[in-house]
């Protein structure tokens, strides 16, 4: 059963004509010439309208009301969809953990993360829809927030879902073998705390949804770049209150990258279906970059405490994981898959018989999480592979020896890991040796020695990972206790489908439900089918734009968990084989031979050993169309075969919570050498070697492409990518100038080393390799930096700032001034301003201005209107700006802590289309040189879009605006009238600057 063919790429290609060769892609000519058919490129029905989503600027707030009157009056706006409509026409999304928490397609009475959809404006163009969105007034009452993991875990944290009463929505413990005994007997215990940040693979194309409500009977039709898993089709249908057959979901031929991220298109498919129902027309939504970064999806942030029981020689006898996953404001399907996808192989590439796990799912006021390439793997391996380095250091054993002693041995495969993973095949040590030799590790050790002698910071790191592929759809059920699982019935398997058909001219078409987004699935499917039928791949047509109403698919359909090479290509192979067998039977009659003697080669069907007895493939294959009666008795026309393949190793979790979470397991071993600049904290990769064993490589060039792409994303995760939030939950990474992706200047060229240990469990012996470097690269780079700096705690991303903190900055004080201006960064964009203004007026006169609304209106910069709403309380309409950024705020201003004529507190809170701002400051008045010295000490927070985008442009802006306010106050009080009724921002600033200096 086990076919161990180990060789270099060059060897594997001799076995087959096309599979194993790096043939150029059939997708490319179309894409290169601008004829791609991505979601926003395809035409829509006349009358299709366009949607803009109104999103919460607050991380946590009650929604008191929505007023869309003004928006609806705008010409071109046709409808506004709100929570009321959602409640009438849909249901909350189902999710794998049963708790009293509800997530609907729009926020209902509460918003729980910045960016949460609150309403949808539908208009004749996206431009007008955005105009309309700005006119919708939403009344929010902010609530306290739970943002950081530690904070959200605490007893007195604000709770997101009242009925649950806690932010921990699931806690599960697992024990395999006898971990307590192993720890008690261990020669050493090594432990580590690891924190993995929120990040995403942010494809360059965002979500695109085109939805149409047909009728109450016929339901909905939607086209989108949703990429699966199609288990979520049921979630969408249930949310829309229709049978799955009345939600027709179609894909586009081309998708601009997904990396798991387009799994999170599903709630928007539902939302736009409902928007279409409201508008009475088809609705198209194209996600923009701000929306995508703020509210599409993210990998879970994970806090892990990991401890290993280690014997004297560095062998791990037990692992103890305590993990907390920050899943955001709602647990959204398919979560908690980020935990459980890896569950069967929490022991990684090592033979560790004892394992203890505690998993807690935590909700926070941040965007909900979902599939992101690597999916659970980066979080696990960042902890585990950092721990391997710690073991090596604390036991003073060479790291490579630690790996060798712990690796699963080649004769142990298929290896049943402690938590149930059945690792199909591998030879880990051989790949390690190959990586070391090809990568010239000896040179790197020499460079490190030289560098250290010269006082430079140079480090080497390693990582070893087992990369699961072809998910067991039952794995998420392990979040429930065994008794509960028994009650709801077992879930397991991972069905891949492929359909092959012959047309009346003998042309071959392959249809798969794989929703590719750039991986070249059509090319590989063509290679696989071409090998079986003896044709050229160019002759095979592959269609990947699936249609749930017409194509063969299963809950496992889609493109995720690297299932293509093993499962989908395997299913294509099996379908092609079946059709070929039938064709062989039919051809054998014409060739007067036995079916087993029939060969398919070079476009012909021939008798083995006698090329003169042959038939052309096309005509023969098509003959069943034209003369089905001539087929052998009892034989169905061999025109179409559909295969549903599921690996038999994917069984449901057993009563001991053991589950084989994936069907095939690749292996990667990485080596990284870095130099760290002690002036700037910049990490430069000197050399990166990545060794991969993914079983049979179907197209080596495409395989290397996957490795390079994942590597680049791993570099990003290691060095620069993180979704940042303020302590008030405001989102700070809303543009590509804030969320940094590596460019061609930041991604070096890795050395790639291959090994092919075939899988005994997949039809072609192939395993997935699309996610390996997302898992292996971040810890490898982290280990290299930790080695360079000789530190224990390393947090991602290793930005220059973080690295400098690790190195330590020598900051000698100034001879003159004692300290720099204090400006702690808290909140959204927290800005402080303090200063003084000398005014030629008495304290009483100045104070009187503050209490006089008409005078105050002239004081507040950009104030268009000020209305008294109570004692010392006002509603103001204020235009505030700095540089070229300007926004109009609806603000509330309050005066309090009045101590006339000495001091008072001035507070304001305002909301605008660009975000919210609030601030509070103490104003003190003192007599000075015949007039008054006004001192102010003010703190402001700015959040929302204006904080999310180009926040750096705002730093200091509040200082200037507040300076303007108090300068103006002074002018008003001293009776100087401004040179015009509403002096320009710049005039006020100039006067302020000359006065204040």
């Amino acid at each position, binding site marked *: 059963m086990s076919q161990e063919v180990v060789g270099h790429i060059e060897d594997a290609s001799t076995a087959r004509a096309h599979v194993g060769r790096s043939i150029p892609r059939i997708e490319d000519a179309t894409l290169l010439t601008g004829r791609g058919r991505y979601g926003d490129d395809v035409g829509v029905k006349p009358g299709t309208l366009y949607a803009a989503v109104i999103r919460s600027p607050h991380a946590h707030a009650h929604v008191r009301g929505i007023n869309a009157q003004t928006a609806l009056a705008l010409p071109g706006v046709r409808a506004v969809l709100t929570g009321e409509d959602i409640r009438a026409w849909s249901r909350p999304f189902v999710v794998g953990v049963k708790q009293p928490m509800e997530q609907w397609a729009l926020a209902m009475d509460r918003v729980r993360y910045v960016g949460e959809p609150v309403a949808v404006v539908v208009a004749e163009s*996206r*431009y007008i829809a*955005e*105009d309309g969105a*700005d006119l919708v007034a939403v009344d929010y009452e902010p609530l306290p927030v739970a943002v950081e993991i530690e904070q959200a875990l605490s007893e007195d944290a604000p709770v997101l879902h009242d009925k649950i009463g806690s932010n921990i929505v699931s806690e599960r413990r697992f024990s395999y073998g006898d971990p307590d005994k192993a720890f008690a007997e261990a020669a050493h215990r090594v432990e580590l705390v690891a924190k993995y940040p929120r990040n995403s693979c942010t494809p360059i194309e965002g979500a695109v949804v085109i939805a149409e409500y047909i009728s109450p009977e016929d339901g909905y039709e939607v086209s989108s770049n949703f990429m699966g898993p199609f288990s979520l089709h049921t979630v969408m249908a249930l949310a829309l209150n229709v049978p799955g057959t009345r939600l027709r979901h179609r894909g586009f031929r081309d998708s601009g990258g997904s990396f798991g991220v387009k799994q999170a298109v599903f709630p928007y498919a539902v939302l736009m279906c409902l928007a279409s129902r409201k508008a009475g027309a088809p609705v198209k939504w194209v996600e923009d970059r*701000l929306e995508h970064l703020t509210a599409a999806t993210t990998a879970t942030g994970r806090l892990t405490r990991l401890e290993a029981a280690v014997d004297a020689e560095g062998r791990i006898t037990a692992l103890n994981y305590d993990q907390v996953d920050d899943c955001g404001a709602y647990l959204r399907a398919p979560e908690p898959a980020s935990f459980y996808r890896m569950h069967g192989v929490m022991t990684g590439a090592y033979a560790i018989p004892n394992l203890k796990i505690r998993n807690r799912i935590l909700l926070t006021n941040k965007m909900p999480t979902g599939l992101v390439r690597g999916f659970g793997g980066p979080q696990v391996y960042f902890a585990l592979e950092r721990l391997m380095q710690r073991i090596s250091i604390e036991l003073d054993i060479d790291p490579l020896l630690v790996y060798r002693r712990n690796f699963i041995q080649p004769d142990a495969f298929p290896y049943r890991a402690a938590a149930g993973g059945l690792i199909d095949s591998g030879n880990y040590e051989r790949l390690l040796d190959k990586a070391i030799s090809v990568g010239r590790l000896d040179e790197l050790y020499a460079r490190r020695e030289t560098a250290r002698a010269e006082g430079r910071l140079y480090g080497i790191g390693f990582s070893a990972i087992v990369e699961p592929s072809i998910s067991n759809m039952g794995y998420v059920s392990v979040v429930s206790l065994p008794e509960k699982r028994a009650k709801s019935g077992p879930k397991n398997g991972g069905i891949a489908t492929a359909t092959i058909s012959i047309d009346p001219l003998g042309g071959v078409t392959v249809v798969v439900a794989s929703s590719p987004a750039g991986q070249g699935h059509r090319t590989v499917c063509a290679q696989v089918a071409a090998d079986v039928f003896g044709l050229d791949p160019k002759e095979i047509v592959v269609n990947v734009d699936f249609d749930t109403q017409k194509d063969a698919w299963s809950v496992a359909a889609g493109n995720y968990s690297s299932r293509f090479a093993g499962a989908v290509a395997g299913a294509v192979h099996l379908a092609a084989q079946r059709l070929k067998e039938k064709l062989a039977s039919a051809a054998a009659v014409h060739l007067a031979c036995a079916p087993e003697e029939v060969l398919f080669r070079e476009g012909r069907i021939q008798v083995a050993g006698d090329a003169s007895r042959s038939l052309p493939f096309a005509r023969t294959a098509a003959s069943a169309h034209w003369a089905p009666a001539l087929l052998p008795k009892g034989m169905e026309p061999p025109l179409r075969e559909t295969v549903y393949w599921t690996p038999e190793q994917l069984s449901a979790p057993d009563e001991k919570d053991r589950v084989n979470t994936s069907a095939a397991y690749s292996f990667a071993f990485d080596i990284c050498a870095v130099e760290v600049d002690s*002036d*700037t904290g*910049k990490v430069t990769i000197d050399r990166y070697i990545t060794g991969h064993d993914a079983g049979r490589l179907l197209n080596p060039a495409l395989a290397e492409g996957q490795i390079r792409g994942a590597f680049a994303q791993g570099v990003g995760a290691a060095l*620069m990518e993180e979704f*940042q939030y303020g302590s008030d939950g405001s989102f*700070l990474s809303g543009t590509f100038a804030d969320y*940094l992706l*590596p*460019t061609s*200047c*930041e991604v070096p060229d890795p050395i790639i080393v291959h090994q092919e240990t075939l899988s005994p469990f997949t039809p072609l012996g192939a395993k997935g390799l699309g996610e390996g470097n997302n898992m292996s690269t971040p810890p490898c780079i982290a280990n290299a930096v930790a080695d360079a700096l000789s530190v224990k705690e390393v947090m991602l991303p290793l930005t*220059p*700032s973080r690295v*400098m*903190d690790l190195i330590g*900055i*020598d*900051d*000698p*004080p*100034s*001879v*003159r*001034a004692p300290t*720099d*201006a204090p*400006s*702690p*960064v808290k909140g959204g964009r927290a800005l402080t301003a303090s200063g003084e203004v000398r005014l030629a007026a008495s304290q009483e006169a100045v104070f009187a201005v503050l209490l006089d609304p008409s005078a105050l209106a002239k004081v507040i910069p950009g104030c268009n209107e000020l209305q008294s709403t109570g004692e010392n309380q006002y509603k103001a309409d204020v235009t505030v*700006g*700095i*540089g*070229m*950024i*300007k926004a*109009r705020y609806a603000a509330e201003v309050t005066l309090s802590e009045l101590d006339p004529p000495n001091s008072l507190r001035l507070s304001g809170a305002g909301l605008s289309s*660009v975000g919210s701002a609030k601030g509070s400051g103490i104003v003190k008045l003192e007599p000075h040189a015949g007039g008054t010295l006004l001192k102010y000490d003010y703190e402001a927070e700015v959040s929302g*879009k*204006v904080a999310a*985008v*180009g*926040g*750096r*442009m705002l*730093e*200091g*802006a509040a200082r*200037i605006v507040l300076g303007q306010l108090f300068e103006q106050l002074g002018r008003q009080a001293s009776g100087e009238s401004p040179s015009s009724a509403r002096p*320009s*921002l*710049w005039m006020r*600033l*100039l006067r302020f*600057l000359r006065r204040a200096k």
Partner: protein
Amino acid sequence: MKPYAFDYLAAGSAQEAVALLAQLGGDARILAGGQSLMAVLNMRLAQPSALVDISATADLNYVRVESGHLIVGAAATQASVEWRAGLAGEVPLLALAIPSISHFQIRNRGTVCGSVAHADPSAELPLVLTALDGEVVLRNKKSRRSLKAREFFRGMLTTARQPDELVEEVRFPLARPGQRVAFLEFAARHGDFAIASAAAVGHGRLIRLAVGGVADRPIVREWEGLDESVIDDALNEFAWDLQAQDDHHASARFRRHLVRRLGKKAIKAVQAKEA
């Protein structure tokens, strides 16, 4: 992300541009390269009622050498200066700094005067102009005035330009014989805004160092001779005087550290070798 609606006027000449500014008032904005303004408009962070487009205004599109300066008109792109054949000889500091401005594609449309008018505290062109003690020429309907860089840049994104004024041209002093220049920048990635940058000019014993990205605008300091024994203290004082702030990209301490390190490298590069 689509902009709010606005009126659009293409100025056929510099005179027309300033006449329009006078007529339209504070709610109109000049559209030059648009590489900053269009991003702001697309994100609806500003709502000007009108745009006055000077990007195709022929009499504003010039780069020429005159009276000891390289003079760049308001419509001239950064690329037109970057790819200029004699630039390294004319204004070597510009030749060193321009490649750090964002990316090739942005420089192809972004203007020199636009970057100066925008006055981002981390921007390279305001830093170079300040280091060289260059000039900004402002023009409105009635008159022109010329300001030195240090008078022009008032604070973060804030300049001396009045709403009815156009930055008509900027003037970079040409390199003088014996003058040495250096430019160093530290950014998160290639092309990103500077977390800290240093531009130095050395002539004889005179050292002039301008730092960007730390204070709310480029700040210059000059020394007459800087021995090895005093250079660290001088840089330290300068670093503290800049009043660095913490933000999400870098702490104040880190910024001071960069001033010390980058500043020192820049100064050493321009110090004349003593006999």
